[in-house]
């Protein structure tokens, strides 16, 4: 077997603010055999994308390829000039970027863009290239492969765009394909389709590929070998099964530990709620964007949501993008007025908008934004960010306030020295801790957490979750935890609410988290989360049917199941005619579905076995 890629002693440097050159990749050595998929894995800032780009002889602005050799398919990439590089880019080496949406030109048809590199390098005629593109569309399982090329980028979904980008890269049959976090921006249910398509096409064509990712579980499905990076250095490299099962380097072990679901011993709730009011109650909440115009109803984002959050409990809300989970939190916080329904705090009705709420009510419900980069004012020092709620809600001033700021920093495990820094001078994990500390400063009863770990690296995110679980014990706060990642939610929540297209399709208790019956959508979600095993992707392929049961076309009725279009368990004549009932389940949860509990349990039971094996 010949080596397609050979990298030795690769060094990349970047220029910092002072104008000094600092190394960001130290002496990387690895090689890839023909037909092999190599994964580069690491946290943000580990140099994985930098190395991947170096394979194309490219360094981002401010960076410099400082030394070593990179040999790709017989070309010494680092000693080539720009025109020589242009000749191999897109022909010998192709690149699939993280965000396909940002990589396509919105004003050109997809076909023109897919065949573009074949045209530039003149490897085939336009007609041949188009025929080949259609072939690729078919292998990538794109709908309507013959005509999809005539559409514009905004007319296809994000997952489809990512696959079209793969077609664009593969059109010239490159010797090496570089995939840079190609599924990170996608929902899990979409990710699985894209991964399956990538895997199939890579196997069919025997492509050699570099797969860059931060997600070990995804990499486990795709790669033959894994290179683990940290701070620009290769920490470990080996066969995929060795890295997963017998990691040698402590850092690899910590990465694996951060992913493996850890059962936290969160004490069960005392059943106090029976006599008291629950902390927060949401009754029949509706919300919509836009106003009724000429008989056209506005876009409904929340549809009849009922929710109870007992004191000290953690309720997880999951769903894919567009399911209305963030809108729910914003409505509870008063940032958006519901069109119907009410929100009760301790049995007392909250005003629908910010104007009608008292400062005490504001204090008791705190909102933690997803992205700490934008949630902290870049011109305010940390002391000021944390001090403001103390002054605003508790009237603290001077030394007392300063003392409390230090206590808060201690609570979120940050040193006191950060007080006079600006948010821009902290790392992502530190900023998220400040974000959390600001909410805690109010001494709230309920914290609404909107995807607080999504923007963070796995290890850092796990540490934040750990901290939140600890604080909950110490301070007896309740959390409403919004996430798209069922794994995150599963381990810290007492109850999970699953949302789909504005409906609450399922609620389930902590002890029944991973056992069927599930709502068909929750089942799809649960079985789409990549598992940290090789071969999972193939296994799951058999479990989620790819073809849906046929439906006799029905007039669109108001109130019928919103998941109908994607449901593998739909029943013609029932699901498309009647609104689904809310069924109470034996496990204490409820689902919005026509299918009987016993039926669902029977159909979904293979999942049970699989999940048991993992644990």
């Amino acid at each position, binding site marked *: 077997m010949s080596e397609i890629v050979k990298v030795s002693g690769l060094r990349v440097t970047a220029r910092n603010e002072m104008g000094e050159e600092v190394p960001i990749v130290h002496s990387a050595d690895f090689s890839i055999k023909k037909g092999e998929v190599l994964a580069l894995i690491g946290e943000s800032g580990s140099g994985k994308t930098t190395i991947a780009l170096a394979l194309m002889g490219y360094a981002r602005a401010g960076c410099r390829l400082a030394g070593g050799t990179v040999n790709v398919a017989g070309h010494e990439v680092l000693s080539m000039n720009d025109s020589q590089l242009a000749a191999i880019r897109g022909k010998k080496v192709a690149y699939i970027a993280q965000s396909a949406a940002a990589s396509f030109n919105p004003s050109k048809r997809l076909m023109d863009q897919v065949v573009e590199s074949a045209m530039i390098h003149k490897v085939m005629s336009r007609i041949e290239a188009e025929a080949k593109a259609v072939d690729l569309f078919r292998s990538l399982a794109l709908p309507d492969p013959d005509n999809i090329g005539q559409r514009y980028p905004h007319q296809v979904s994000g997952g489809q765009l990512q696959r079209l980008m793969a077609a664009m890269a593969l059109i010239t049959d490159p010797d090496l394909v570089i995939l840079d976090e190609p599924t990170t921006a996608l929902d899990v249910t979409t990710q699985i389709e894209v991964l399956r398509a990538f895997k199939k096409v890579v196997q069919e064509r025997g492509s050699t590929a570099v797969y860059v990712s931060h997600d070990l579980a995804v990499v486990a499905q795709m790669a033959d070998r894994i290179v683990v990076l940290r701070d620009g250095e290769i920490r470990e490299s080996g066969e995929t099964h060795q890295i997963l099962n017998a990691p040698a380097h402590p850092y690899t072990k910590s990465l694996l530990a951060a992913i493996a679901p850890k059962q936290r011993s969160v004490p069960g709730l005392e059943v106090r709620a029976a006599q008291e009011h629950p902390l927060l109650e949401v009754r029949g909440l509706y919300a919509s964007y836009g106003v009724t115009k000429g008989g056209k109803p506005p876009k409904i984002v929340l549809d009849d949501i009922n929710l109870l959050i007992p004191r000290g409990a953690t309720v997880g809300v999951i769903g894919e993008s567009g399911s209305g989970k963030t809108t729910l939190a914003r409505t509870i*916080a*008063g*940032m958006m007025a519901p069109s119907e329904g009410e929100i009760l705090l301790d049995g007392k009705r909250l005003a629908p908008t*910010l104007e009608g*709420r008292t*400062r005490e009510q*504001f*204090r008791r419900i*705190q*909102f933690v*934004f*997803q*992205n700490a980069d*934008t*949630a*902290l*004012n*870049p*011109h*305010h020092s940390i002391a000021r960010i944390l001090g*403001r*709620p103390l002054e*605003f809600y508790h009237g603290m001033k001077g030394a007392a306030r300063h003392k409390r700021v230090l206590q808060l920093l201690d609570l979120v*495990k*940050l*040193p006191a*020295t*950060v007080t*006079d*820094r*600006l948010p*821009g*001078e*902290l*790392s992502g*994990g*530190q900023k998220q801790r400040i974000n959390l500390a*600001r909410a805690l400063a*109010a001494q709230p009863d309920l914290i609404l957490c909107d995807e607080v770990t999504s923007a963070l690296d796995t290890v*850092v995110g796990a540490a934040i979750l750990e901290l939140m679980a600890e604080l909950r014990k110490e301070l007896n706060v309740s959390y409403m935890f919004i996430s798209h990642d069922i794994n995150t939610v599963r381990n810290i929540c007492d109850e999970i609410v699953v949302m789909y297209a504005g409906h609450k399709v399922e609620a389930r208790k902590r002890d029944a988290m991973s056992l069927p019956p599930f709502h068909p959508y929750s089942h799809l979600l649960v079985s789409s989360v990549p598992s940290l095993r090789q071969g999972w992707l193939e296994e799951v392929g058999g479990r989620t049917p790819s073809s849906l049961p046929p439906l006799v076309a029905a007039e669109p009725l108001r109130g019928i199941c919103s998941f109908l279009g994607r449901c593998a368990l739909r029943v013609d004549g029932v699901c498309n005619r009647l609104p689904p009932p809310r069924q109470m389940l034996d496990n204490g949860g409820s689902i919005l579905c026509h299918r009987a509990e016993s039926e669902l349990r029977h159909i979904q039971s293979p999942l049970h076995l699989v999940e048991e094996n993992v644990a």
Partner: protein
Amino acid sequence: MNSAAMNPTARRKPRPRLSISGAIGMAIVAFWLLMALIGPSIAPHGVGGQIGDDVFAPMSAQYWLGTDYLGRDMLSRILHGAPYTIGVAFAGVTLACTFGLVLALCAAANGGWLDHLISRVMDTLIAIPNKLLALIIVAAFGSSVPLLIVTAAVCYMPGTFRISRALAVNVQAMDYVQSARARGEGMFYIMLYEMLPNMYRPVLADFGLRFVFTVLLLSGMSFLGLGVQPPHADWGSLVRENIIGLSLGAPAVIVPALAIATLTIGVNLAIDALSGGKRRGSEG
């Protein structure tokens, strides 16, 4: 992750350092501000002092900057003109920026009908050509220094409003402003402490630009005889009234032009340095 933060050497308090161009800009602005204050009192001659028959005289020991088209001492003319040009332009543009900014903040932070009302009124003003508007105001109310300041402010406020509002709309959609809202903060706090600090950089740059425009507007007005009234003159009118001297190579036309140029360049250099503060870290 925490080790870096706890390391005492990592903790630094960067002092805002002025770049060379910034220092030059500051020096020029400081010099002209000083001249605006004390210029008239150190001028060797009175403002209209007819001191000789020598028209468009070159620079000499007696007349440092030559004489103008009526034989008046150019140095004195410039020094007497400084308070008009600098004072009126500064006051006018400061008023314009302040009002524009305040209205923009109100419009962006409140949204809804107030935003619509303010924006439409400003759109109406912006639709009228600046010079024309200024002429109408002066024709209606007569020419005086306070009126010139108000005129400049009215003419340039819609522009600053537009820019500030665009900025404010972006800033108020940021999570930290939303977060302050969810905390229950009042509108005033949000505008002043959350939004304003994230806006003043481009607003200051805009200030510098408008300052130049105002100087030009004033000289235009003076040229038409509606600005500063003779024998007083601002620098713009000094250029205009001595324009015939151009063919004679007289310093009388070049010196006031140079004064305007140095002032506007100085203001822009100083503002670039002020607003592009160094303490910014990764945000760059």
